[in-house]
C-alpha cells in the first residue's frame, strides 16, 4: 500500500450512524440504526447485498449468512470487473500459479490490457521483471537505461520545440521498417505489453503491441494459430503486422516460463468472457510447448477473498441468489446490475463499495429508490444517497482480519491503531445486524401466529 493511501485513511470519515429523516441524514444512536436496518432487511422480499471486496473475509462470512437468512441475492464487485474471467475459467480452466513462482521462474512476462505501472504500482518490482528470483534476475538495469533514454529524448524534443515552436516533430512509435527486433531476442527476462494505447508500462516494455480497440479476440486467436505453427494469410491482425506476431509467438514458445497478466482491457472490452476464454486457451495450449501460466490482475484489495469465501460457503464465486433457500447462480440474471435493471430488488445493503457512482444510471436509480443501507468508513456517493449509514472501521488499519492476494495467497491484516470511538468493524456490525434480523423475524412470526 502506498503511504498516501495508508496515512490519508482518516479523511472524509463517517463517525456516527446516520438515518434519513425527512430527506436529510441525521445522526442517531447505533441501536436505532441497527433496528431500523434489520427491519428493512427482514421485511424485504428480495434484498440485494453488494460490495464485499474491500472488507475482510471474516465480514464476508457473516454477510453470506445474513443473505441466507433474509433470502436475498448477494454479489461482490467481481460482477463489474473480473466476472467475465470467472466465466472464462468455468469454460476452460486456468493454468496459474502464485506470484512467487513468477518471480523465481518467469523469463517472459506479458501484460495484456492492464497497466500495472499505474494501477498495481508494486507489481512489476515485486513479482515480475524487476524482481530477483532463484532462476531469473531482475531487469532493473535495462529499465534504468530505458528510462534515461526516454528522459533524454523528451529533453531533446522540448529543446527542439523551443528552437522552432511551430514545426512538429513526429515521435517515432513502432518502427516501420522490418528488421530483427533486438528486444525480442535478448536473453533474460522479457516484458511484452499488449494494449490499445502506449501506457506507462508499455514505455518500459521490451516490446509493445498496439492492438486496435475491441480487436483483442482476433489477436488472441491469431496467437493460438501461430503457436500451432499455422500460417496466417493476411498481412495484419487487429492492426498489427503478422511478422511482429510471429516474433512474439516465437518468444512465447521459446521461453522457459511465460506468464500473461490480463486486466480489464480484456474483460470489459468487446467480447468480454470470450476474450478471456481465448486468452486462457492460449496459455493452456502453450503448455504443450513450454511452461505457461496466466493470471487476472484483480482490483480491490480483497476481491479474491470475497470470491474465495463465496465459493467455500455457497459453491459459487459471485452473484448468488438465496431467494429459493439454496444458493443459485446465474450471472446475467442473479448479478447485481441485472437485478437492479429489472427492478426486482426491494432493499439493498452496500458494504465497502460505491455502486451509486459507478453502476449504470438506471441501476443506481433503482438502488436509491428503495431502502438502502450503507456500511462504509467514508462518506461516498452511495452513503450520501443511503437511508441508513453505518460507519465502520478500516480493516487492516483499525481492525484485523484476513485478505487474499490476487493469486489466492491468504494474508493476515493487522490492526495498527484504534478505530474512532463507537466505530465498529464490518464483521461486528454485520453480526449484530444478523442477530437483530433474526429477532425481528421471530417477532413477526409470533405476531402472525397470534392473528
Amino acid at each position, binding site marked *: 500500500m502506498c503511504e498516501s493511501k495508508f496515512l490519508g485513511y482518516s479523511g472524509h470519515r463517517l463517525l456516527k450512524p446516520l438515518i434519513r429523516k425527512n430527506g436529510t441524514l441525521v445522526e442517531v444512536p447505533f441501536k436505532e440504526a441497527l433496528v431500523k436496518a434489520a427491519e428493512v432487511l427482514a421485511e424485504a422480499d428480495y434484498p440485494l447485498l453488494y460490495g464485499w471486496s474491500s472488507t475482510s473475509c471474516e465480514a464476508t462470512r457473516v454477510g453470506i449468512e445474513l443473505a441466507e437468512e433474509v433470502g436475498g441475492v448477494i454479489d461482490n464487485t467481481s460482477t463489474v470487473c473480473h466476472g467475465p474471467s470467472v466465466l472464462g475459467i468455468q469454460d476452460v480452466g486456468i493454468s496459474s500459479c502464485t506470484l512467487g*513462482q513468477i518471480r523465481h521462474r518467469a523469463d517472459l512476462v506479458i501484460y495484456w490490457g492492464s497497466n500495472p505501472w499505474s494501477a498495481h504500482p508494486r507489481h512489476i518490482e515485486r513479482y515480475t521483471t524487476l524482481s530477483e528470483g532463484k532462476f531469473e534476475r531482475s531487469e532493473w538495469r535495462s529499465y534504468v537505461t530505458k528510462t534515461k533514454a526516454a528522459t533524454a529524448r523528451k529533453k531533446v524534443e522540448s529543446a527542439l520545440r523551443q528552437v522552432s515552436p511551430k514545426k512538429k516533430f513526429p515521435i517515432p512509435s513502432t518502427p516501420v521498417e522490418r528488421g530483427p527486433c533486438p528486444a525480442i531476442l535478448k536473453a533474460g527476462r522479457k516484458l511484452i505489453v499488449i494494449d490499445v494505447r502506449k501506457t506507462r508500462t508499455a514505455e518500459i516494455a521490451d516490446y509493445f503491441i498496439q492492438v486496435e480497440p475491441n480487436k483483442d479476440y482476433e489477436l488472441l486467436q491469431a496467437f493460438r494459430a501461430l503457436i500451432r505453427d499455422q500460417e496466417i494469410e493476411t498481412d495484419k491482425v487487429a492492426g498489427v503486422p503478422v511478422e511482429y506476431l510471429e516474433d512474439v509467438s516465437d518468444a512465447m514458445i521459446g521461453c522457459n516460463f511465460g506468464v500473461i497478466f490480463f486486466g480489464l482491457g480484456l474483460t470489459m472490452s468487446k467480447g468480454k468472457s470470450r476474450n478471456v476464454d481465448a486468452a486462457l486457451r492460449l496459455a493452456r495450449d502453450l503448455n504443450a510447448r513450454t511452461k505457461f501460466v496466466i493470471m487476472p490482475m484483480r482490483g480491490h484489495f480483497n476481491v479474491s477473498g470475497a470470491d474465495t469465501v463465496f465459493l467455500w460457503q455457497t*459453491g459459487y464465486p459471485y452473484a448468488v441468489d438465496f431467494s429459493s433457500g439454496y444458493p443459485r447462480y446465474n450471472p446475467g440474471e442473479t448479478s447485481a446490475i441485472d437485478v437492479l435493471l429489472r427492478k426486482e430488488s426491494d432493499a439493498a445493503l452496500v458494504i465497502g463499495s460505491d455502486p451509486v457512482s459507478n453502476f449504470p444510471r438506471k441501476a443506481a436509480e433503482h438502488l436509491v429508490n428503495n431502502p438502502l443501507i450503507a456500511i462504509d468508513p467514508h462518506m461516498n456517493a452511495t452513503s450520501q444517497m443511503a437511508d441508513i449509514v453505518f460507519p465502520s472501521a478500516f480493516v487492516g488499519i483499525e481492525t484485523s482480519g484476513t485478505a487474499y492476494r490476487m493469486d489466492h495467497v491468504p494474508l493476515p491484516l493487522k490492526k495498527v491503531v484504534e478505530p474512532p470511538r463507537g466505530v465498529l468493524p464490518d464483521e461486528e456490525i454485520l453480526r449484530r445486524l444478523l442477530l437483530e434480523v433474526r429477532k425481528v423475524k421471530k417477532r413477526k412470526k409470533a405476531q402472525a401466529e397470534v392473528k
Partner: protein
Amino acid sequence: MELLVKNGFVYDPLNGVNGEKMDIAVRDGKIVESVNERRARKINASGMAVMPGGVDIHTHIAGSEVNTGRLLRPEDHFRDFESKTSVTRAGVGRSIPSTFTTGYRYARMGYTTIMNPSMPPLEAKHTHEELNDTPMLDKASYPLLGNWWFVLEYLAQGKIKECARHIAWIMSSTKGYAIKIVNPGGLEAWGFGHNVKGLDDQVPYFCTTPREIIRGLCKANKLLNLPHTIHVHANNLGKPGNYTTTLETLKCVEDLATEDKPVIHLTHCQFSAFKGDDWRTLESGAEEIANYMNGHSHATMDMGQVIFTDTTTMTADGPFQYALYGLTGNKWVNHDVETETSGGIVPFRYHRKSYVHAVQWSIGLELALLIKDPWRIFMTTDHPNGGPFTSYPKIIAWLISKKAREASLKRINARARSRSLLPSMDRELSLYEIATVTRAGQARALGLKNKGHLGVGADADIAVYNVNPETTDISRKYRTVRRAFRRAAYTVKGGELVVKDGAILKHVDGHTMWLDVKVSEPARITGDMKRRFKDYWTVEYENYPVNEDHLKGLDPITVKARV
C-alpha cells in the same frame, strides 16, 4: 450431558469387541464406564450395529485446490443442492460440496473425523478457514513437504536433524498434522513443466532424488515421533506400469522400520497399481502389491477406489493432472505454489464400459481383498478423485458381499471383466472388518488415541447403523447394509446427538487437530533464515504462520520429539 446408547451390537475393533450386545455410556463428550440410567438421554440401538464414528484418512474437502474445484464446476453444483433449514446452512455440490454440506453429509454417514491431505504451507490459513466452516467433524491437514525448497536443500546436504526441526516449526506454524509427500521431486520439476520418472531421477537444480526425499522425510518423521507416518503419493501416479515404482517406494524405507511399526502410508494405492506398457495393455498390479504387503509390515495403504460416476480429480500432482487433461480434453486448472508444490484439477467421468476405468475399479477392490490384514488397507475414494465420499456405502457393499461385486461386474467392460481377479475371490469382509477399514484401522494408523474406538476415555463419537447382524445375512442382503451406511440411524459427535435417521438435528463445530511438536532445540530463526525466507517466498516471514486469532476450535496435540 449424559447419553446412553443401549442394547446395540457393538463393533469396536481397537478394543476387540466383535458384535457384543452392550451399552455405551457418554458423559461430557467422553465415553465413560457408566452413567445414571434414569437421568441420561437414551438412544435405543437394539437390533442395530454400533461403531465408533467413522475416520477418513484421506479426503480433499478444504483448501485452495478444493475451492478452485468449486469455482471450476458450477455444473456440479446445479444438480445437487441443499436448502437452508432451521438448523442447517444451505449448500451445493456433488463431487465438491460447499463446506457446510460436506460436514452434514459426512455426519449423515456416521463419520466424525476426517483428514484433509494436501495443504500447501503458504496457503494453510485458507485451508483452516474452510475447515472452520466445516461443521460436524474433527479434522486435521497434512502440509505438503515433499517439494518444499528448505526440505530439498537440507536433504541434499544430508542434514536430517535440521530438517526435522524445521518440520516441527512448519507443523506448528501451519497447524498441520502429518508429513505429506506428493510426487517427490516431480512437482519441483513441474515448475518448468517437467517431471521425474523414477526414484533415482535427479530433481533439477536441487542435487537430490525422490528416494532421498522419501527416506529423509521418513527419518525426520521418526526423529519427531509424529503420530502418523509419512503420507506418500508416489511418483508416476496414474501411469501404466507404475506398480514397480510403487513397490520401489515401499522398499526404499523397509530398513527404517522397527518393531513392526509402519513407517510409510501409501495413499490412494489404486492409482499406483497399474501394470502394462500403455493404456491398451493396462492390467492390474494389485496382486504384486498385495503380495508385497502381505510379506511386510512396515506400510499401510488406502484404496482410492474408483466409482463409476462423474467427479472432479484434484491433486497436488500437477504433471499428472496435465496428463489427464491431455487424455480427456476437459477443462484444466493448474495452480503452482512458489517453492512448495503445485496442483491441478480436471473434471473426470469414470465409465463402466471403458476398459481402463473398469480395470481401475477392479484394482481398488482387489487390493482391499487381497491384502489380508484389514489394519493396513483402508477404505477411501481419495475423495473426490475416485468418486465422492458419499459413495462409501457402495464400497462397503462390494467389500462385504461377493454377490454385490458380481452384480457390478456384470455391467462393466467385458475385456476388463475377463481379466479381473474379482470373480476368483471369495473373501467377504465382516462388519468387524468393515469397522476396521473405515475407522479403527485409520485411527490407529493416524495415531489418534481418542478416536476410532469406544473404550473408556475415548471421544464420544459414535455411529449407529440400522443393520441387525443377528437376523441379516449381510452378504446376501448387501442392499440393506448399503442403505444403513448411507443414512446412519444415529450419529453422536462429541457426546451430542447430531443425526437421527439421516437427518441433521444439530449444527455443531468440530475441532481442528494439529501437532505442537516439542523439540529440544527449536529451529532458530536467524537473520540468515529470514533472508532466505525473503528470497524464497513473496510473503513476509511474519505473515507466513497461521495466526490463531481468527480460528476457532484449534486442538493442539503435544508431541515430544527425539531431536
